[in-house]
């Protein structure tokens, strides 16, 4: 998708892909025929630049035709470079300016509680995104308001645009930080489907405090020459390398 678009963020899309697949095909309740269904579970992709993975999931789930995916980032497309809730069926929040999604999800969670709805909100954050102070404002507030109908998921791929997170702005000890803010912390391998699904189930059951899943992931996961390469944060794979990348990804699927 990003190769065809000529721009985009393939690295962080691939690190998030397994978790997004788990959510959309094994966990969340939604109705692609009625994308604004009041009782649907919501997904807020706070790291909005990873939207190619989300768009692919939404197409697969039936919110719009798969052919639409090839219009990504093109003038007139319903698939903008970052998610737009007014344009794209299935998108629950317009995101992309980092640090905002957890707060937005908190608002959805408060509304759900007020309306006694059973839906749940899933907010995916990038690890680089955790540099933003607003994330911690939201973290503080979610536990203060005893939110338990929201699950935060950190796509902890260890990299951000300028390099490794440990070099740019250290996050560790990350689990302790969330826990100090009053969250129930689960740590998993974000590419192990069983671990992802077990953690999502476990998070659903936490009462009176918000759960966060810190998912250890690999930027560019599934494509040997993209893995852990900061180059692919905001640049698509070239036409020449695309076939190799796709072959590796399909082999990955079979494993």
């Amino acid at each position, binding site marked *: 998708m990003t190769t065809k678009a000529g721009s985009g963020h393939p690295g962080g899309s691939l690190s998030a892909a397994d978790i997004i697949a788990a959510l959309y095909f094994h966990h969340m309740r939604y109705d692609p025929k009625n994308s604004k269904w009041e009782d649907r579970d919501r997904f807020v992709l706070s790291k909005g630049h990873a939207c190619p993975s989300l768009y692919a999931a939404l197409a697969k789930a039936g919110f719009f035709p798969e052919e639409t995916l090839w219009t990504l980032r093109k003038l007139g497309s319903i698939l903008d470079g970052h998610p737009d809730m007014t344009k794209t069926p299935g998108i629950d929040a317009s995101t992309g*300016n980092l640090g905002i999604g957890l707060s*937005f999800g908190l*608002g959805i969670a408060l509304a*759900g509680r007020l309306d006694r709805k059973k839906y749940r909100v899933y907010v995916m954050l990038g690890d680089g995104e955790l540099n933003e102070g*607003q994330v911690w404002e*939201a973290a503080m*507030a979610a536990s203060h308001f005893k939110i338990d109908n929201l699950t935060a998921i950190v796509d902890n791929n260890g990299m951000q645009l300028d390099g490794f997170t440990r070099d740019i702005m250290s996050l560790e000890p990350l689990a302790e930080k969330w826990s100090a803010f009053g969250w129930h912390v689960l740590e998993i391998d974000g590419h192990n489907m069983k671990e992802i699904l077990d953690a999502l189930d476990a998070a659903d059951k936490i009462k009176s405090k918000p759960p966060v899943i810190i998912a250890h992931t690999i930027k560019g996961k599934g494509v040997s020459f993209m893995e852990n390469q900061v180059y692919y944060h905001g640049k698509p794979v070239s036409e020449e390398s695309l076939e190799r990348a796709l072959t590796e990804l399909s082999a990955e699927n079979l494993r």
Partner: protein
Amino acid sequence: MDTEMLTRDAYGKALIELGKNNENIIVLDSDLSLSTRTAWFGREFPDRFFNFGIAEANMVSAAAGLASCGKIVFASSFAMFATGRAYNQFRTVVAYPKLNVKLVASHGGLSVGEDGPTHQCIEDLAIMRVLPHTTVVVPADAIETEVAIRACVEHMGPLYMRLGRPAVPLIYGKGYAWRETPLNFRIGESVTLMDGEDVAIMATGLMVSKALTAADMLLKDGIKASVINVHTIKPLDERVITRAARESGAVVTAEEHTILGGLGSAIAEVLIESYPVPMIKVGINDSFCESGSPEKLLIKYGLTASNIVSATKKVVKRKK
């Protein structure tokens, strides 16, 4: 115009009244609820009031999340923080997706007074009115505030409203009447308070009462000024503004705001394309101000009836 009242008191009262009949109204604040008066709603409806602490970015973004689920959300802080601290959030998750959030800020303008230039917000109208999908409202007194807040609930979409800190003179009579005639408040319209063929004075917020005083003073010198209360900065009442310019041939604008980008600029943008006439903007002349009592500050920074009078005399001389 002898009685003075706080616009924020009117806001607090209006919220309680509206909250009684509409369970969808949710109110948020960021640790200034005693000043913005949203605490009154909080006492009445604790389940529908959330204090976010001193975290405006989080508050405005959560307001957007609530609005995405069909809530009518009022979020309040001081103008400086509501617009300055949460600008990107309002832009990206309220204005862009057209969510139904009403950002109602007290303590707008210079009349914040003693807290000084860090807290005086003289640029909010400029930065909020450039946002697409966003409505910007500045009531002139407490009575207009109440009807404006009611109108907000009927109005779908992003809205910024600026209120002040000090008490301001009541212009309107009970039930939003002007000289015994009851009016309807409509977002996007203006209110012509006085007619006069020599010049049109267009004012907003607390400058409206000063414009009325100025018009009376000008009459003694034989200058007949119309006075238009432009309570909605965006969308601007272009029809009435253009007509007033055409009929009088000169315009003075008055706002408690920097002369860059606010009411005066908005009106100039309209008139330059529709009917250019000599025009002078009364406002803060591109500077930060200082601590002091509101009254003394308004004098020092040129926001009095006399300032409007001298600007008017000057502009009338320039008429062709």
